[in-house]
């Protein structure tokens, strides 16, 4: 199409990509700065209202992504602490309990900071609503923190040579620290998994598409991250179970992630491979595999164990941040809401189900 005589001086336009071909990060390359002519209707079958998003992204900052990671570390650490307690590994028990309290404390602070009205954080415990993963999670977090807190304070008291001003309560603390450690371990799994339900139970396209498998990714990620932290803090002599847990976590994480991506709508899965989220998830897989390999081959060497542990921690953090960012990105582009919905509606209609559409002719 030639509009003016000067058009012949324009650089050649790249060939239009066809739909259904290979999808890559370069698919939506239009930089929108007017440097090249853009097709007015980029996707023939995709219409939206001036390109504006249909759903709204959760108003959550990086604090929440950090909490996803820290909550996982705390959960796994409580399990390791309880294991150390039951199998007579005092150093692992001490370090894991301290890690659990540290991580859950930081995580809870991050959550409160992210509220629109932080001073009303206690309203989270105003009611118990099973339909609200956030409500269920707040109760899990509270129950977990109580046990993890008591267990960790007992360790701090021991480390400080019984200098905490506890008075007669010291006896009570000694008596309840064991049960408290176990109580935290009971709530550890739910603490690691509920955040996956929290993300899955949203209208954010990419998160919602993940809802079946994300819990498995998150508990695996929590396991390998907490095991990684224990490998950093604890001498190799007592860190055997941490190494095993790390390996199980790595296998679970990689496998669950692959299965999850395969089950997702290809368009809704796109944000996992694009932009910031894509980079983070790519590196998270690399770091998790590297950390797993290091644990397997050199886990009995203190330095290698610590380095592997750090790689696992970083990998887990990147998994959480990557999933988090991918969801926010999917909510900001109407394509991720409209295309999968149109496709599933068409599929239902093709299968003869016509009674459940929101749009009706009569």
């Amino acid at each position, binding site marked *: 199409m030639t509009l003016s005589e000067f058009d012949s001086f324009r650089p050649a336009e790249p060939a239009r990509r066809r739909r259904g071909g290979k999808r890559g990060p370069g698919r939506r390359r239009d930089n929108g700065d007017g440097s090249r002519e853009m097709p007015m209707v980029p996707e023939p079958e995709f219409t939206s*209202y001036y390109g*504006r998003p249909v759903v709204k992204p*959760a108003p959550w900052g990086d604090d929440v992504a950090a909490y996803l990671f820290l909550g996982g570390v705390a959960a796994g650490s409580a399990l390791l602490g309880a294991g150390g307690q039951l199998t007579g590994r005092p150093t692992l028990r001490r370090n894991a309990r301290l890690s659990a309290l540290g991580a859950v404390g930081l995580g809870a602070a991050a959550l409160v900071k992210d509220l629109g009205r932080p001073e009303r954080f206690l309203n989270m415990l105003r009611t118990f609503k099973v339909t609200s993963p*956030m409500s269920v999670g*707040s109760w899990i977090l509270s129950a977990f923190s109580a046990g993890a807190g008591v267990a960790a304070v007992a360790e701090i008291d021991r480390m400080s040579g019984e200098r905490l001003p506890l008075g007669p309560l010291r006896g009570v603390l000694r008596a309840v620290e064991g049960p408290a450690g176990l109580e935290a371990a009971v709530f550890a799994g739910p603490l690691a998994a509920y955040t996956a339900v929290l993300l899955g139970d949203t209208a954010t396209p990419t998160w919602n598409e993940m809802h079946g498998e994300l819990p498995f990714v998150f508990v695996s990620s929590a396991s390998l991250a907490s095991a990684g932290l224990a490998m950093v803090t604890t001498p190799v002599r007592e860190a055997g*179970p941490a190494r095993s847990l790390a390996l199980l976590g790595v296998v679970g994480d990689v496998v669950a992630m692959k299965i999850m991506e395969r089950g997702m709508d290809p368009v809704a899965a796109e944000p996992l491979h694009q932009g910031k989220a894509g980079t983070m998830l790519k590196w998270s897989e690399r770091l998790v595999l590297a950390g797993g390999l290091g644990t397997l081959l050199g886990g009995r060497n203190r330095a290698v164990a610590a380095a592997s542990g750090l790689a696992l921690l970083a990998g887990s953090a990147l998994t959480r941040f990557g999933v988090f960012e991918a969801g926010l990105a999917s909510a900001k582009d109407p394509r991720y809401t409209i295309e999968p*919905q149109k496709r599933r509606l068409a599929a239902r209609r093709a299968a003869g189900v016509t009674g459940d559409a929101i749009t009706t002719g009569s």
Partner: protein
Amino acid sequence: MGQLTGPTDPTADAHWEHNHPRKGFFTDTSICIGCKACEVACKEWNHNPQDGNLELLGSSYDNTGSLGASTWRHVAFIEQGQERIAEARESGRALVSLGMPRIGPPAPPSVADLADADTTPPDTADFRWLMSSDVCKHCTHAGCLDVCPTGALFRTEFGTVVVQDDVCNGCGTCVAGCPFGVIERRSNGTVKVAASREEQHAKHADVPNAGVAQKCTLCYDRLVADETPACAKACPTTSIKFGDHDDMVETAKERVATLHGQGMTEARLYGANENDGVGGTGSVFLLLDEPEVYGLPPDPRVPTADLPKMYRRAGMAVAGMAVAAAVAFLGGRE
């Protein structure tokens, strides 16, 4: 906990003992003239602050943008040429021939056979301007309400969904939970209407309920006084109708049948089907094109519908984690 999916009476589901009839809107976009009186009336009645700075958005006459924390009615403007009109007419006709289950009285014969209908557009054949006043859907199964952890969002005796702004702690879960992108957390970066240019750049006045989730209440304060919501009251063409939800659905069905009879096969209803992904909406719309053209999701599904499955999967994952920890400690080599 009430029903998570399917047709239900939301008021009874929320355990209201005295059943007021469910209230709702029917927004007939075929007679909307885009005057935005609804937007203004809503802002005034609800004391909603200005949404961001005044700017031209380059989207026809829509300079509001979208529904949000401080915009509870939003008039969409879409300009379409002949081709799009033909497409809309075709997609509307396809909907009718799908054989949707009919509820209520049988439709007049003119609807049944649309093949012979006169498809000559009544007016503007080569250009049309779609205008539609969007609002909170007050879903039968409301995603925002389901996921709210504090109980700040609740189901009123009129079957609507309302935020208690003195309870909400601004966690933002509802924002992600809404399949229509309606509810939003109000930031305090908004400004108040300025009387002069100097004032416009002055320090912004305090915004009420900053940091708290906000959305249309279907004028709950007016409903309890037996008044019509501000937007419906202000609508000069009765494009926004308010009344008992059942009546609204019936009116909508009659109206779409009338339009079909006039050859406007592009007319279709949105939200009138109680078997859809949100159990039907409290605010029913008559649209003249596909929903996504108006910025509405084509197949919304309340995320909580899948919650039992999610909890089951999470339970399996928790068990897996516990087993992994047990194996790590018991099956270890040292």
